[in-house]
């Protein structure tokens, strides 16, 4: 499988870092990171990644608003989005699924199986 390009949008720099290393180590994917929704939408538009990992709880524009912005943009609307969340409430998860995201990954995620988890959600074969 050719190397995938991943955009992580998370205000936590440490998460950006572990995700970057994890995906590189596990699947040799290249990761670009954005620390806010606004920056994320810009990067997505300019770089058109293969998948976007989007944190739900962010200051300012949160994950849901960012997702809506991505969906409204014709350039980014077809890019699959996987939500990253620490929220465990069933109702919230169901709400996210209804938005039409490719999938939801709950923190803490399995660090050595993150790539395979993402691939499963977006139906890639590793």
């Amino acid at each position, binding site marked *: 499988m050719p190397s995938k390009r991943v955009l992580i949008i998370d205000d*936590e720099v440490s*998460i950006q870092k*572990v995700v970057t290393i994890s995906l590189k*180590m596990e699947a040799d994917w290249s990761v670009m990171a954005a620390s806010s929704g606004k920056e994320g939408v810009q990067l997505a538009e300019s770089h058109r990644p293969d998948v976007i990992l989007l944190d739900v709880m962010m200051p300012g524009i949160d994950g849901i608003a960012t997702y809506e912005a991505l969906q409204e943009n014709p350039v980014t609307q077809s890019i699959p989005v996987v939500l990253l969340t*620490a929220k465990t409430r069933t109702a919230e998860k169901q709400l996210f699924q209804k938005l039409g995201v490719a999938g939801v990954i709950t923190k803490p995620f399995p*660090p*050595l199986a*993150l790539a395979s988890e993402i691939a499963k959600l977006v139906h890639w074969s590793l």
Partner: protein
Amino acid sequence: MQSTPDGCKFSFEKDLANTQPLTASSQTRLAKVMELMAANPEASCILAVYRQKVIGIATRSDLMRVIAAQADWPKLRLSKVITRPVMTVSATEPKTLTSLLQQLEQHRISHLPVVDGQGNLLGLIEQNRLMQKLLHQHQQYRSPLQHQRTQQLAEITLKIRQSLHLKDILQTTVDEVKRLLDADRVLIYQIFPDGTGKTTREAVASPYASILDIAFPEEVFPEDYQALYAKGRVRPVADVHQLESGLSDCLVEFMDELQVQSKLIVPIVQPMNPSVGETSLSKQLWGLLIAHHCRNPRQWSDFELDLMQHLAGQISLALSQGQLLEYLEDRVELRTAELTESNLALQREIKERQLVEAALRQSEAQLRLITNNLPVLIAYVDSNQCYQFNNQVYEHWLGESPQTISGKSMKRVMGKAHYEKVKDHIVAALAGEAVSYESELTFQGGRSHSVSVTYIPHIEPHSRPHKEVSKKNNRNSKRKSKPQVKGFFALTTDISDRIAIERMKDEFIAVVSHELRTPLTSIHTSLKLLATGRLGELSDDGQQMLEVADENTDRLVRLVNNVLDLQRIDSGEVTMDTYACDTAKLLDQAAEAMQTLAQQHKIDLQTQAVSLSVWVDPDYIIRVLTNLIGNAIKFSSSGHSVRLTVEPYLPHAAPSSKSNSKQALFCVQDYGQGIPSHKLAVIFERFKQLDSSDSREKGGTGLGLTICRKIVEQHGGSIWAESHPGQGSRFYFTVPLSRAQA
């Protein structure tokens, strides 16, 4: 006026007879008779008449006797009391006063009705009145001596009648007879039931000896004599030494001892004791009135005989009155004693009641103190949904005093809108069901509070169903078997604080779940990546430190996950996504998931599964199984096996199952150290592992079994453990079979 042999003439109408005697029908009730007697205090008797014919007579004494003896006397009829037949005297036949008196005395009667030729009642001759008349006539016609004697006789009679005491009457009699007859010794000789007798009263002139209290030998007064006297024999003996007196030698001898020359004996007879219940006609000899003349022999005159007889008659009357009096006094005494006793009993009862009431008041005061100081609304509602009791808290919370609420309907007090919301609960409570629900209540000041309400039905303890077998009555018996609910107790607790705390807890956990998990994710992921060694080699010590950090981060992640899971299940947030699943597949999936761990610990996982269809959320049931299998592996020594089974199960044997439908029974069995019996009951509670060191050593969080229990309970099943220390443990849980299989 006609001339009669003794010169006494009379007219019944004018002089002698009472022409308006008291009369009544013999069917008159005694209550009415006594009213008549009371209205006519002069009347000494009442005549029972039928069509102007006298058919019976009842004296005041007769009536008194019946009243004293019969409790139900007011209902009795006059016919039960009257003496009959009644001796009458014809108004057309000429009679002398003396002959009338003789007739009265001869028949021992005191009243003589006067009738005309056809027997119709004209009037009534009374003994008293007759005697007064006689006295009057004697004053007119007799010699001065006779006149004096007659007057004296009347005087004695009156004197005797003045007293009701027998002792006085007897003494007066002997004193007066002695004086009047100028006798030397007058005595009253009383005869006892055994035939003996003695002198009980005496008047004796000097120098003659007193014979008071001397017992007479029996020969002196043999039984056949007694019989004669009982029939009314009067015995005048002019000279005891004369042959014609007919006295036995021994009696003459006895008379000589007493210096008696002449004697006169008249019997004193009396009616039977009324209390014994014998008829008034049977008479008995009570004693004798005896006059002795000791100076010389003496011829007793008719007058003297009359006098003695008359006085004996008076004594007889006094005796019967005395007896009646004594009897009445006894009755009064008895009744007084009874009344005193019942009065005392009543006082005791009053005192006991007062004590009970005081105790009740105290207990009620204590209860009020408690109910008024509990921070709970307490009320009693009757079957008409009206408040019968409210504690003081109603005033503090709702601003309505118990007095203003009492008796009012719940609907009125709550307001229609609130009542409609809780109406079903009220109806359920009045149908005998214990009800609990949560609601909102507006306190005074308008602030709404969350409240928890419990209704406890008050069921009549004696309303057990009647056992009726008849088919006909089946419907009735069903109606009767319904419990009789008299009302219910309503307890309302303010749970606003609890709700607020729960909300805070939820918020806190939500924050923790994000704020704790994000840094934890970074640490966890970083350590995992480092541990791969692909980011550079570490020294041996560095590698060891990394592993310690990695293992403990794993544990921390599990702990945080478990805490959050438990909170979610507890709060009811988790809804099980249940559908029909196969037990064998569930068991295989769980075993497969745990295979790696089992291999690490060199544990053999053995599976023996029956294929059953159960109604479960498979993710959660696999989680329970993996948790139990994980524990079994961790607590087994390497080389041992862990057995997994599933089979059909009838739940009656389960210690805490609430369901009665068929279930599947899962079992995870190990052969490890086992669990002490006192720990078995608590291991499903939070942080109740065998000991805290196990938790650290085996990497557990102390919440796994609690989560298992919650999940199983959410499925309507139950979970328990059996163990013998040293022989391993068996963890069982049940889940319901799917409808098709159950």
